[in-house]
């Protein structure tokens, strides 16, 4: 008997099951840690402390979280329209170009809060632009969006290296990066926010783009559940045949959904480029686009879930880095393994426990 259609209460679907998945992921990670001769509980303590134990640790955690919120939202928006956008990575990379060009153009003349809205627009525009061709190919030519967006990740990476090495590089320097932005092209740190909680940010690059990410999470919620466009996207995503019946234009909806998705991915660049390094560097995205897929899956494509899942992955990134520093046996690669396990259980196997939960729940309800 199939259990897929049996309804479960929301607290099980959105609370208990993700928690269970997470626990299993941690348990198996613990086994791996134990197998290489370290104490799993000690490792867990170090991971938590390294990500949440101090002000600067929290600052780094939230810095990563910010990037993952943007890319998670990007994947989620496309997903609601039934599209699997694997290209957030490349769209974020190009978004960095948009943000950097704005910062380079304006930083000498205006303060940061004037630059910021233009930088947001620039990043979104370039990210959306990078999503446009795959979107068009999907909408009009039926080329599968997964394939084209993956390809565009590679094209984007090559393009950016070319631009940084040959065009944007500071003459006479060896590093393939732009000049450092002046304060007018930087997003300030959120020291004051940390101070509210009596914490010191220290060197952590936790910055204003975190607030932009939260605003975007809210706007995505409005888009998906409170606008006609979101209604059409959801209809298309759930039932393409009902969308045809309802007269929802396929091509237009696909293209718009992908532009929004690409735009959100592009905005991710604000965080590392203008909030942390204050210059555009090679490979600054660092896989955040792909983490966004896991974040969106784990957050069930809901903005609130995405913020929480992004926080979890932020903890894993920051805590993991600290852990590999403290326990030399646990290398950087081990952390990637643990992250992989979390993605595997929380993302790819998200419904693994569902049949069991359904059986338990039904027995419980009958009793």
């Amino acid at each position, binding site marked *: 008997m199939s259990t897929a259609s049996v309804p479960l209460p929301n607290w099980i679907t959105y609370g208990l099951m993700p928690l269970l998945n997470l626990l299993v992921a941690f348990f198996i990670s613990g086994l791996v840690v134990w197998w290489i001769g370290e104490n799993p509980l000690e490792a867990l303590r170090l991971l938590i402390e390294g990500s949440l134990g101090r002000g600067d640790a929290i600052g780094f955690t939230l810095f990563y979280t910010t990037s993952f919120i943007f890319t998670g939202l990007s994947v989620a928006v496309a997903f609601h329209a039934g599209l699997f956008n694997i290209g957030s990575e490349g769209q974020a990379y190009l978004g960095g170009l948009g943000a950097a060009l704005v910062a380079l153009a304006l930083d000498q003349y205006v303060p940061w809060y004037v630059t910021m809205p233009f930088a947001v627009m620039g990043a979104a525009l370039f990210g959306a632009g990078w999503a446009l061709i795959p979107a068009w190919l999907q909408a009009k030519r039926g080329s599968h969006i997964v394939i084209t967006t993956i390809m565009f990740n590679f094209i984007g990476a090559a393009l950016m290296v070319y631009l940084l090495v040959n065009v944007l590089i500071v003459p006479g320097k060896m590093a393939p990066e732009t000049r450092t932005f002046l304060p007018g092209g930087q997003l300030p740190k959120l020291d004051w926010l940390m101070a509210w909680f009596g914490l010191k940010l220290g060197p952590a690059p936790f910055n204003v783009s975190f607030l932009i990410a939260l605003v975007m999470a809210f706007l995505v919620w409005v888009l998906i559940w409170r606008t006609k466009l979101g209604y059409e996207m959801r209809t298309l995503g759930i039932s393409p045949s009902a969308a045809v*019946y309802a007269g929802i234009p396929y091509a237009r909806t696909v293209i718009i959904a992908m532009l929004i998705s690409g735009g959100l991915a592009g905005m991710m660049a604000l965080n590392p480029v203008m909030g942390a390094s204050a210059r555009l560097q090679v490979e600054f995205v660092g896989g955040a686009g792909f983490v966004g897929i896991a974040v969106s899956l784990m957050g069930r494509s809901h903005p609130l879930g995405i913020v929480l899942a992004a926080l979890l992955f932020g903890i894993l990134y920051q805590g993991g880095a600290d852990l590999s520093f403290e326990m030399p046996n646990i290398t950087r690669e081990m952390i990637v393994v643990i992250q992989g396990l979390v993605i595997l259980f929380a993302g790819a196997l998200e419904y693994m426990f569902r049949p069991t939960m359904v059986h338990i729940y039904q027995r419980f309800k009958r009793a």
Partner: protein
Amino acid sequence: MSGFRQGKARRVSQNPAIELVGIDKSFGAVHANKNINLKVEKGTIHGIIGENGAGKSTLMSIIYGFYQADRGEIRIDGKQLTIRDSQAAISAGIGMVHQHFMLVENFTVLENIMLGAEGGQLLAKGVSEARAELKRLETEYGLDVDPDAVIEELPVGRQQRVEILKALYRKADILILDEPTGVLTPAEADHLFKVLKVLRDQGKTVILITHKLREIMAITDEVSVMRRGEMVATRKTAETSVEELAELMVGRRVLLRVEKGEAKPGKVLLSVKNLTVKDGRGVTMVDNVSFEVREGEIVGLAGVAGNGQSELLEAIAGIRKPASGEILIDGQPIAGADPARLRALGLAHIPEDRHHMGLVLKFSEYENAVLGYHRDSRYGRAGLLDLKAMQAEAVEKIAKYDIRPPNPLLKTANFSGGNQQKIVVAREIERDPKVLIIGQPTRGVDIGAIEFIHRRIVDMRDAGKAVLLVSVELDEIRSLSDRILVMFAGRVVGEKTADAGEQTLGLMMAGIAA
């Protein structure tokens, strides 16, 4: 090896090839198979006939292991078997040829036949064995086909032959064919029948699922009739007639008479001229059809399901592009216009398939109550959705149409079939359209809701709307329609008044008389 099996099969032929005892299967509220009993004798061609939705395909899927029966037994050659999946069905000697072929289009014939039965990790040995076996099957059954031809380059009839070979290659003794002639030209169908007769004469058992009476008469030894999930009769083909089968298939049900006055037809609101519609494979489904529907009348399109009514309806609703011909609403040509524009012109459409078209089952009730009309400014301005307005209107419709449970926030999948249909009916009727086209208004709907929906349809007529009604329920067509058009094989084969006899209509639907 297979010769030995056949010999054995002949010796113990007192056991039926397949026996079904009390098979029962429900999908949620839909009772697809009700206590089905069936015996198929060895070495015969056994037809199973019934309208689409009668439960034939569900029953065959149970035999082939796609679904599990809720209750009942399957006995193959006298032995009770649990068929968990198609693998189990294959090892029990059952082969299935699906209506839509399960072939890898860019593989060769040989590769397709071997698929899933490669015989080991390395291909070479399997390939040479398969080639030899294919040669043998070819000479034994006269099923010639080039083993190295690529599937997508073969005509449909040949592709079907590959499906049959696939089953035989897996040593099937029982061959199930699901609507095998639907995609074939008449010549190809004749050839298929020849092949099936050879298979039978070689001791194979063939089950033929179809809704075409002529095929049953032409080649089967026995025939079983299904109607609304039940097995209503089994006859020796030689001892029955087309008339009897037609009657068994359509059924005599107590008439649900709808009280209605005389129709007062006015000007023509919907007009279809020389319309031809093809399906995705290029098969002509609607063939040069012309008719008119006037304001204040209900025109019923009768026909056994699969004779082009669905495609005709979809073409009028803008979902399927017609190949040629004209459609006019109130004088305006609309062929090829999209559904959104048609709604604006005053065409409302209650689709045949509410689960895939009329509703998004994961949406809340109030969200579905605006599907297709969601762009209307009454549901919010500036691109925003006004949830309060949507819900308020949904509450009104829920009260007016007695939709239960009366909760606009409930997920649509959690409503019963009848209430789901009322959601669609309420949405389409309450927009006050000029032309209403309706497919299967009461499929899977309980009696109470049927009466209610029928009443609403008649009200629409009395309000001066043009109503086009498609239904496979002949009773429904007869009790609602002012005029009845009968479709067969994509053509309108005749027009009758509402008081035409069931027998007459039944024969026309079977393509026997006009």
